[in-house]
């Protein structure tokens, strides 16, 4: 029999599997063992634990580092100014001076060399910073300053009297403009010798240590710009000059499209400009106007860029351009997307925009429509309403019966008074309450 033949031959037959099968089995076992929890051997749980512990350790170390670095940054803020000196800089050392390469200048000193943090580029340039070491100085009557050529300094109130003011006037200041509209950018020039150092105050709180700075005056006003110049001997000269900044007008307008735009109706513009006395309108079709609030009639429909230039009494001006403003003829027809028919019975669709506030009739809002045909279809495509009269909309009834709540399709065709045809379609939702 067949079954006996197979059983005897094959029941305990042995076939040598390929060596790769054995390897594959052991690899898979190894992988699964790795994923299995077993406290006796390294597996994914141990690996996960190591990773977690490492992360925690890293976080601890990191936060520790963070505190340390904070401490480092704190030190300079403790009130002392540390200036690292160039070894090559020649200094006349005072007797109190420590031989270290760092000098600490006391804050009470009459002249402090300050690295002003807001002007970092000057800090880099100021290689020759020399702190004037004057510890316990009351015995010395005067500072015959070893003022640096390029250095930065700030004078404190106590020192002011000792500096002699040599010159006064505006002859050291050159300004690109002295009068203009805000925001006004002025380029200042300084005709003092290049070796002298200077400080500019612009009168609006701004200042600069550059020789020829530029400054922008943001708001209108009268600003007195002061220039202090220190020559090599520490002598100071002061120059000042006045900059007038006029307010800039703001051009603003609104385009008022009337509700009833006929062929000869124009468009009104409402002018909201401020600080201006003169106006120049450009309607984009070649016509201009100087009126405050002009009215303009466009001959043909199209897109126009309307611009208004408003000029103040000081000659400052501002321009507002509204692009592609006035497109089309101003004629339109629009439909709502829902209405609520009156359950009291058919109204034959007569409506007036004023009386139909409850939206009992589905009707358009329109302007300049001459020809008109409105058709309304059910979702199945059945024509249930048609009107060629603009004053008759759909009251929601079909053959004397109120239609079902739901979505209907409308299509309107016609033309405007200028002969331009229109076709629109959309859906509307009939609501019942």
């Amino acid at each position, binding site marked *: 029999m067949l079954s006996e033949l197979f059983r005897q031959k094959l029941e305990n037959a042995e*076939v040598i599997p390929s060596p790769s099968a054995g390897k594959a089995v052991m690899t898979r076992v190894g992988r*699964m063992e790795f994923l299995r929890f077993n406290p006796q051997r390294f597996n994914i749980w141990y690996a996960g634990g190591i990773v977690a512990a490492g992360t925690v350790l890293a976080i601890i170390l990191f936060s520790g580092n963070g505190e340390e670095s904070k401490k480092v940054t704190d030190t300079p803020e403790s009130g002392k100014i540390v200036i690292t000196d160039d070894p090559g800089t020649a200094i006349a050392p005072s007797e109190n001076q420590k031989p270290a390469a760092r000098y600490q200048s006391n804050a009470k000193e009459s002249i402090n060399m300050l690295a002003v943090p807001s002007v970092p580029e000057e800090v880099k340039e100021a290689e020759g910073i020399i702190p004037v070491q004057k510890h316990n100085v009351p015995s010395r009557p005067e500072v015959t300053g070893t003022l640096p050529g390029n250095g930065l300094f700030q004078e404190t109130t106590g020192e002011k009297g000792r500096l002699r003011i040599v010159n006064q006037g505006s002859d050291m200041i050159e300004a690109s403009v002295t009068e203009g509209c805000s925001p006004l950018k002025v380029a200042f020039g300084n005709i003092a010798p290049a070796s002298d150092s200077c400080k500019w105050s612009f009168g609006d709180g701004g200042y600069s240590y550059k020789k020829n700075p530029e400054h922008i005056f943001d708001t209108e006003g009268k600003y007195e710009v002061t220039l202090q110049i220190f020559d090599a001997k520490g002598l100071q000269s002061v120059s000042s000059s006045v900059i007038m900044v006029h307010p800039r007008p703001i051009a603003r307008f609104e385009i008022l499209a009337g509700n009833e735009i006929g062929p000869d109706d124009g468009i009104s513009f409402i002018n909201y400009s401020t600080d201006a006395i003169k106006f120049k309108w450009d309607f984009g079709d070649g016509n201009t106007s100087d009126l405050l609030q002009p009215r303009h009639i466009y001959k043909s429909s199209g897109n126009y860029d309307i611009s208004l230039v408003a000029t103040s009494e000081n000659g400052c001006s501002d321009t507002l351009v509204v692009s592609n403003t006035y497109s089309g003829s101003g004629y339109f027809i629009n439909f709502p997307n829902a209405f609520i028919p009156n359950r009291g019975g058919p109204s034959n669709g007569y409506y007036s925009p004023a009386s139909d506030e409850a939206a009992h009739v589905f009707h358009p809002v329109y302007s300049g429509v001459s020809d008109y045909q409105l058709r309304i279809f059910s979702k199945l495509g059945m024509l249930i309403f048609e009107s060629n009269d603009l004053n008759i909309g759909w009251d929601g009834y079909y053959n004397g019966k109120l239609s079902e709540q739901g979505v209907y399709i409308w299509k309107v065709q016609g033309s405007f008074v200028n002969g331009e045809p229109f076709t629109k379609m959309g859906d509307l939702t009939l609501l019942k309450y």
Partner: protein
Amino acid sequence: MSDHQIIEGCSKHDRKAQKMLYDRYSRFLMGICLRYACDRAEAEDILQDSFIKIFFNIKDFTGTGSFIGWLRKVAVNTAITHYHKNLKFRYCVEIEEFTSTETGIASFEEDFFTSDELYKVLNELPAGYRMVFNLYAVEGYKHKEIAEMLGIDMNTSKSQYSRAKAVIRDKLNTLRRLKTNYSADG
């Protein structure tokens, strides 16, 4: 190392014992798997899955029955799982083209065919026939058990078995003819 020690080691997930178990029984299990597969590659897939099952479920072996019997059972069950898993990829031949052609010689001499040839015949069978034939003829399960294992009707099992027999007989007859012709020519 005795079977007992190997089982002990495997239940502790000892890699050495696992390797030993594999080396000792892989050929025997491969012999089973090859009967249920259409080729060696599939047989080795089943073999791998079987060993994974054996390694991770060796605690379920109570030690009361024979270890070999347990291994065989695992392998057969794995083969059935494999058959179910791959069922949708197979092209099922259910046409009655194999209706019994028992006209040939009813009995086959045991030693006329090598086991390699028998394996080949089995491998060429449609999967459903092969499963039923193996389980019924070689493993010795009842049709009722086979129906439960494969999730088919008992009568399906019976009819598939008889069809499988017919196909095998056909193939063996062809084989015999070829062999005798060849030896006669030779």
